[in-house]
């Protein structure tokens, strides 16, 4: 690992090695890796009732009757509720992002009312003394369904005569958003070459290692509730549950204990969370539920699922003039928390790193009889990056240019930053030249091109393809005013409190909510540098609305980009106060003090010094503080970010494609990412590796498939294929560091980078391998059969 630019640090010029930039081993991993920790499922709640959810096996049907009597009669079953039984307690699941004024927002009840609209929809809930009984009782709830025709295809759902999911709305069209930037038709008219493609960004299932779980307990005789959930968003969840159920927010404590992955799928207020709360209130007893893997596949939201009609216009010399993107986005059966907004998170990013005169974006959201979609690692940005990086490769092929050359000709040059893109965002910094040069060198690009040529000439059964992806993305969701302008109903700030306790240990209370990312370690490193204390002296407190009352939680690579700023500012406030105390005690002018390695020293008088830990004790005893100063040593900060940050990178994939069997194999993968200043290189590596694996998975393996009746065919992990380490080569990763100028630490965010970048790199590689056969696209996942059929069609002279 080398870095072209030295990382900036919070404390330049100190004697101690800065914690920021150090490969500190993750403090939280012993308990996470061994599982010896508190998950929602093992929170001890004596006397808790277990929920069992009666789910629809039919995608679209009227409920004509529910007979709960047999289930209720079973020993150990406490009660069974239908929508009718729950009445006002059958709360609606909220969507907080009405993206247009005329968006169609159907009711989405915890328990289905009159109709079911997807396989897995919930029609009744069983409460039993143990989970085995609950599972048995589910089978004894008899539901009569009157099946209706289902629609799973988006274009069919928009066509006249389609079955309508929400009959009171009269349409399956959720919304249409138009976002024209510049005059695309004029740009197209000024072009020599126009390339258009229809890309299918297929539906994915997040499959976090820990399925969802919730447990809710009334607290004694008071009207207070504690709710544990395997969630990414305890703070958001508290607000939404309070709004939905009427439980006052100050009487509801939400705890996300350790959480085993999310990838966006736990960014939600789910019906099971609402049911646990209302049933705990109704019965006055603890209620709990843990999702089975089978439920997880249908009941936890899915990701992607867009039809992307993309057109790019350029002059013969390779100057991109304009881009047109028309999306059809599958909402699924209902709108969950930000379902309609997911495509719009990509809206600003389809232009990627390229300069152009015009960009025309539109998106139509559609209801179908499928599981709702929502955020999945990258959320809108992987789709955008896939479309632009694929179409740029197609343009290169059309022009007969090397794909790297075409990109060089059109990308924003490093001296042009800050640069306002055609979609209106201002990219603060970037250096696409540096990242690309380094990647080409590590990849041995020219050698691989030569090998590719040899294989083509010898008609090798295994062809070699080189896939290029020069991606950027936006992290740091988000400036609150921007979110407001986009009709998102919450802000994008983040909060941190840092307390130096009497004996000098530090509590760092963050509003971010880690679920595997390593915040405990990274946040400790930042605080360590700001306060000059050892990393191991910092305890990070998170994921509990009682202990960290303010927060906007973790998603969208925002935690470091936004939360990191709050940590830095809170720490600076601590140091500012401590300095006043130290100066007072040393009878010095605060301006004459310097703060180095956790010690306040009088400049020019090295004998006179005190440590921040000593100051903390003085602040605790309060025997000798400056007049008017409040005791204790802490600092709190809530930071609203100035702007997004824009990580970028160049990812290169060498794909071997067996032209007989269609099997595409990733032979080597090189990426050079620029995520700005790196707090912990080990964690960044981990994020990049996992991200690449997840992006490769979309390209080659994963895809949720429904039959025409709305049955999920990929409903188990035998059929929904997740790659493992055995399917992947060892990735070569490297970095350039161009610090963000909108973030005081210069960081940008890394949680989604690999996923966003890798999918187009892989598919560009597969297509590149098969280009001599006349192939110009391969449907994802590029399974052997998809590749084989594409080749068969191309050889037969048909369209790919």
């Amino acid at each position, binding site marked *: 690992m080398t870095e072209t630019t030295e990382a900036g640090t919070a404390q330049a010029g100190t004697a101690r090695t800065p914690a920021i930039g150090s490969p500190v081993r993750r403090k939280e991993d012993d308990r996470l890796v061994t599982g010896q920790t508190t998950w929602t499922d093992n929170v001890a709640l004596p006397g808790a009732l277990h929920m069992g959810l009666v789910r629809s096996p039919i995608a679209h049907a009227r409920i004509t009757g529910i007979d709960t009597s047999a289930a209720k009669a079973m020993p150990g079953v406490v009660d069974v509720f239908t929508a009718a039984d729950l009445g006002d307690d059958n709360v609606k699941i909220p969507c907080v992002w009405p993206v247009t004024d005329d968006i169609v927002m159907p009711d989405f009840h915890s328990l289905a009312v009159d109709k079911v609209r997807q396989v897995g929809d919930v029609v009744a809930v069983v409460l039993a003394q143990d989970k085995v009984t609950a*599972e048995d009782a589910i089978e004894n709830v008899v539901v009569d369904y009157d099946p209706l025709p289902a629609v799973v295809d988006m274009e069919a759902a928009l066509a006249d005569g389609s079955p309508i999911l929400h009959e009171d709305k009269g349409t399956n069209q959720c919304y249409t958003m138009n976002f024209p930037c510049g005059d695309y038709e004029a740009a197209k008219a000024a072009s020599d070459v126009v390339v258009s493609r229809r890309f299918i960004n297929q539906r994915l299932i997040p499959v976090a290692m820990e399925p969802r779980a919730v447990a809710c307990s009334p607290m004694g005789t008071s009207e207070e509730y504690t709710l544990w959930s395997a969630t990414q968003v305890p703070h958001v969840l508290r607000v939404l549950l309070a709004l939905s159920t009427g439980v006052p927010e100050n009487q509801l404590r939400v705890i996300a204990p350790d959480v085993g992955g999310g990838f966006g799928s736990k960014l939600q207020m789910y019906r099971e969370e609402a049911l646990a709360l209302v049933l705990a209130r109704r019965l006055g007893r603890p209620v709990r539920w843990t999702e*089975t893997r089978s439920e997880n596949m249908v009941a936890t939201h899915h990701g992607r699922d867009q039809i992307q009609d993309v057109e790019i216009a350029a002059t013969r010399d390779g100057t991109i003039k304009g881009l047109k993107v028309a999306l059809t986005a599958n909402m699924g059966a209902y709108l969950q928390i930000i379902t309609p907004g997911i495509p719009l998170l990509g809206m600003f990013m389809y232009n990627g790193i390229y300069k152009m005169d015009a960009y025309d974006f539109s998106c139509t959201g559609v209801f179908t009889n499928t599981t709702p979609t929502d955020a999945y690692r990258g959320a809108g940005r992987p789709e955008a990056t896939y479309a632009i990086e694929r179409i740029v490769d197609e343009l290169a092929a059309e022009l007969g240019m090397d794909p790297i050359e075409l990109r060089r000709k059109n990308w924003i040059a490093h001296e042009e930053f800050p640069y306002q893109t055609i979609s209106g965002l201002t990219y603060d910094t970037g250096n696409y030249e540096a990242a690309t040069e380094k990647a080409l060198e590590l990849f041995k690009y020219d050698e691989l091109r030569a090998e590719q040529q040899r294989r083509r000439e010898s008609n090798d059964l295994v062809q070699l393809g080189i896939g290029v992806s020069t991606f950027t993305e936006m992290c740091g969701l988000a400036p609150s005013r921007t979110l407001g302008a986009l009709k998102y109903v919450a802000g994008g700030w983040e909060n941190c409190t840092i307390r130096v306790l009497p004996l000098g240990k530090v509590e760092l209370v963050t509003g971010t909510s880690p679920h595997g990312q390593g915040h405990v370690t990274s946040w400790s490193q930042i605080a360590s540098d700001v306060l000059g204390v050892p990393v191991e002296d910092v305890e990070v407190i998170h994921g509990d609305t009682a202990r960290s009352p303010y927060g906007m939680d973790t998603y969208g690579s925002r935690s470091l980009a936004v939360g990191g700023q709050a940590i830095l500012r809170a720490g600076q406030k601590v140091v500012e106060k401590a300095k006043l105390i130290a100066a007072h005690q040393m009878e010095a002018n605060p301006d004459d003090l310097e703060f180095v390695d956790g010690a306040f020293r009088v400049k020019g008088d090295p004998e006179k010094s005190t440590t921040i830990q000593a100051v903390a004790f003085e602040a605790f005893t309060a025997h000798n503080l400056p007049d008017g100063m409040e005791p204790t040593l802490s600092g709190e900060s809530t930071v609203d970010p100035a702007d997004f940050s824009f990580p970028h990178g160049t990812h290169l994939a060498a794909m071997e494609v067996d032209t007989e069997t269609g099997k595409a194999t990733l032979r080597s993968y090189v990426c050079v990412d620029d995520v700005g200043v790196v707090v912990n290189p080990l964690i960044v590596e981990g994020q990049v590796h996992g991200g690449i694996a997840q992006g490769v998975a979309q390209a080659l393996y994963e895809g949720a498939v429904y039959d025409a009746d709305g049955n999920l065919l990929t409903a188990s992990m035998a059929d929904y294929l997740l790659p493992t380490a*055995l399917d992947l080569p060892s990735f070569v990763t490297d970095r350039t560091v161009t610090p963000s100028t909108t973030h005081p630490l210069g960081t940008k965010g890394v949680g989604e980078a690999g996923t966003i970048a890798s999918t187009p790199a892989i598919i560009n590689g597969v297509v590149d391998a098969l280009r001599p056969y006349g192939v110009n696209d391969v449907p994802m996942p590029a399974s052997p059969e998809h590749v084989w*059929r594409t080749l068969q069609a191309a050889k037969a002279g048909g369209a790919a």
Partner: protein
Amino acid sequence: MIPAAFDYVRPGSLDEAVRALHEGGEDAKVLAGGQSLMPMLRMRLATPSLLVDCSRLGELRGVRDDGDAIVIGAGTPHHEVMHDALVRAHAPLIATVTATVADPAIRHRGTFGGSLAHADPAADLPTAALVLGAQFSIVGPGGRRTVAAADFFTDFFTTALAADEILESVRIPKLGDGWSFDYQKFNRTAQAWAIVGVAAAVRRSNGSIAEARVGLTNMGAGPLRASATEAALAGAGADGIAAAAEQAAQNTSPTSDLHAQADFRQHLARVLTRRAVTNAARF
């Protein structure tokens, strides 16, 4: 993901197990390594009334030399089979194929006989057993009987075993010198089921193929022999393999599912047969 209620017995001998199974009736099931049965129980795809746990019956475990054959106990875990000296010496195809079964954790619990008796059309071992001419020793209330591999696999997940019979062991003839083997397993992820598999056993003599046996995995309800290819390979040289392999999908009726449509499976069978025979023949 919680099984429906069932009764459970763990007999101390094979005879006791047969008796328990017989008394348990049609809905009683044998539990060996549990690697296929447990997921089916948990998803409630199977709801047996009684499980007869044979996983600790020592008499079902191990490999022995039986003159012109080796005998593999049905309860021998895959891991032991693939590392067994007798297997490696006299039935190396079994070791090769077993190494492709799932992952190490499953190979330590799952058993040789369990995989055969489960008769998943995508399972690899039935194909190897068919190619090697294995004889299945079955114990029931009426005593022992022997069934040839060709008669053992009768349909999807269905074998010649009656509800109250237990597979005791499998006798695999030693093929002797001059034979070599290959197994081509085609799957999408490293440890997934075979989309198609092809096992080839080839005996060479005087620079050409004297005899070849080709078995197909997942090309029908159970393992199949590619008879037309086998016939075409007899006496063939290196240049005859491709043409012979073109006939590999004759008389197959593979299913169409998420991972492959039938015509793609037939295409794969031809390609993989060519590769397996070429590798085994070592021209």
